[in-house]
């Protein structure tokens, strides 16, 4: 169904994943250095999921995101400078400093917001999918959510309605094995969230969420199905977050072992993809290193931009409560 991606697509996928990794690492450092107020949920380790899906979406397609949302926005085309400015609470942020990490968004490229409420996104994506069908514009709405969110009523209502109306929606479950600090085995009696899909009348697919091409292929089929008017798909991506629930490390939680983390880190989605690209002769190790260096410089410049951006004027407090 999905045609073999061109080298250009492969390099774009690689670049998007590396952009997420460098942004998130720097965001973690910036939080520890006091530049980022509030809660910061990092996407490192899960890059293949956002990028494997977003590689099929245009600026007109919509997504809803989660509290761990930077990766989704970057994969959708978000700019570093506006994002760091938002995380810093500055006026040049995407949300003028009113949203921060948990609400960073850019509607102009179809990113309908990170969301501080677990399970908040699926109903909104279902509604965006309804609008796409209503307008017959061929666009797709994808909603990213975790294994934890799959226990929320909001997810179930959205899944039922999307399937009922055959909406162009893609339910992407990022199963990272934990709802905050609670392992999946302690929050649901199933192993595969995709098992729930037939209960709503939609296909459920499980893929290796550390393998970006596996995600890319499965997402391609699901997006195509949605665009054809055949309704939603639940795509479950088995993944892992390399950092803590909040921030990088140091929360002192003992909810997972170092050994488990080390095992997953052996399957780093970027390292695995780079090995594959080198093997295929698409991107050499040296060339990959250059990509990293270039993106690291972009991150550095964006941080400087954010640092130079002013805090919002107190007079802006009541702006945009209403249209």
């Amino acid at each position, binding site marked *: 169904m999905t045609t073999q991606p061109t080298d250009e697509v492969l390099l774009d996928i690689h670049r998007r994943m590396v952009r997420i990794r460098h942004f998130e690492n720097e965001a973690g450092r910036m939080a520890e250095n006091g530049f980022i107020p509030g809660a910061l949920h990092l996407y490192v380790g899960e890059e293949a999921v956002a990028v494997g899906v977003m590689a099929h979406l245009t600026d007109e397609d919509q997504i809803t995101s989660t509290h761990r949302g930077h990766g989704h926005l970057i994969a959708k085309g978000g700019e570093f400078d506006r994002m760091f400015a938002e995380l810093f609470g500055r006026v040049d942020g995407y949300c003028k400093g009113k949203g921060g990490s948990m609400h960073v968004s850019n509607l102009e490229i179809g990113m309908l917001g990170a969301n501080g409420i677990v399970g908040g996104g699926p109903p909104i994506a*279902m*509604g965006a999918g309804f*609008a796409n069908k209503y307008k017959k514009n061929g666009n797709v709405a994808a909603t990213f959510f975790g294994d934890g969110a799959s226990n929320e009523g909001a997810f179930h209502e959205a899944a039922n*309605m999307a399937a009922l109306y055959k909406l162009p929606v893609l339910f992407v479950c990022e199963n990272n094995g934990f709802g905050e600090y609670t392992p999946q085995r302690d929050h649901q009696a199933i192993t595969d969230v995709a098992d729930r899909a037939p209960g709503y009348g939609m296909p459920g697919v499980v893929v290796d969420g550390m393998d970006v091409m596996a995600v890319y292929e499965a997402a391609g089929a699901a997006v195509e199905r949605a665009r054809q008017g055949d309704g939603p798909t639940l795509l479950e991506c088995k993944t892992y977050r390399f950092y803590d629930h909040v921030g990088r490390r140091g929360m002192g939680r003992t909810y997972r072992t170092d050994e488990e983390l080390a095992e997953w880190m052996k399957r780093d989605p970027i390292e695995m993809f780079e090995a594959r690209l080198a093997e295929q002769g698409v991107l050499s190790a040296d060339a990959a290193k250059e990509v990293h260096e270039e993106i690291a410089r972009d991150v550095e410049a964006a941080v400087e931009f954010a640092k130079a951006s002013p805090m919002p004027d107190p007079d802006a407090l009541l702006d945009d409560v209403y249209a």
Partner: protein
Amino acid sequence: MPETENGKRELSYVLAVKEAAAAILNEEPDAFIAGEDVAGAGSVFGIYRGLLDEFGPDRIVNTPISEEGVIGLGVGAAAAGLRPIVDIMFMDFLGECMDEVTNQMAKMRYMFGGRATLPITITTMCGARNSMAAQHSQCLESWICHIPGLKVVMPSTPYDAKGLLIAASRDDNPVFVVMNKASLALTSEVPEEPYAIPIGEANIVRPGTDFTIISYSRMVHESVSAAETLAEQGIDTEVIDLRSLQPLDVDTLVASVEKTHNAMVVHEAVRFGGMGGEIAAQVQELAFDYLDAPVGRVGAPFSPVPFSPSLEQSFVPNADKIVASATELLGL
């Protein structure tokens, strides 16, 4: 259509709402109506009856019994450029969808720095009537008036219902249009052409010089009735129908109190924590020097809505209770 003696057209509340909805769908191709049983049944209250035949299932959309999904449908569709009208059958069912209402719909514009516009209209039904008991009778407007980002109107008459529903649909914000099931059989003059009543402007339904009753929704009619009784006692009472609770037209209230020097808020909702407290506080802050007594409040007692007709009747405020409270407040 029935006509009054002077040739003006009268319409029931139910038909006024339906006429407004049809006008909205005719003028705005991006508008649609979604909710439980809005299509074939035209809502259990009949407010959308017949629209399915006129506009088809793409625009009159039956939903599962999934209130969080229904509001989510509206939020997502609005964020993607449509102008949804979503129906929550009974206001009591807000409990099923308060995350979508409070954390998503109300806040999306603000927390995205003004880059989202959410032109959603939510129609819903409040009020104790016909022994619908504790879970189908509540007036919960305080819940939604407390949330920045939402607007709330509560039309008392068929005329207001049509004009406020059209205004809500043309507004670029989420607007709740809360109707009272006890008012659905009321009739009033309703012009045939579409018209909008400005949201945020109160309506003086009975001018007076001695006493101000501030009310909304169903209690406007009880307040007018009470005013007639008070008039017999020599108290010329002004009755103000707020029409809109959020935003609140406090200027009209203050202007009235400057004239009458006494005021009382009347609503069907439970008195404790009800809108009466907020309204009384604002009037007292802004017009303290004009007041001869603290602003009074009439509301339901602090109880779930009871089932038995005799209990339901004693729960809901009425003209007699308003007169009694007014008499006490005025020291008559």
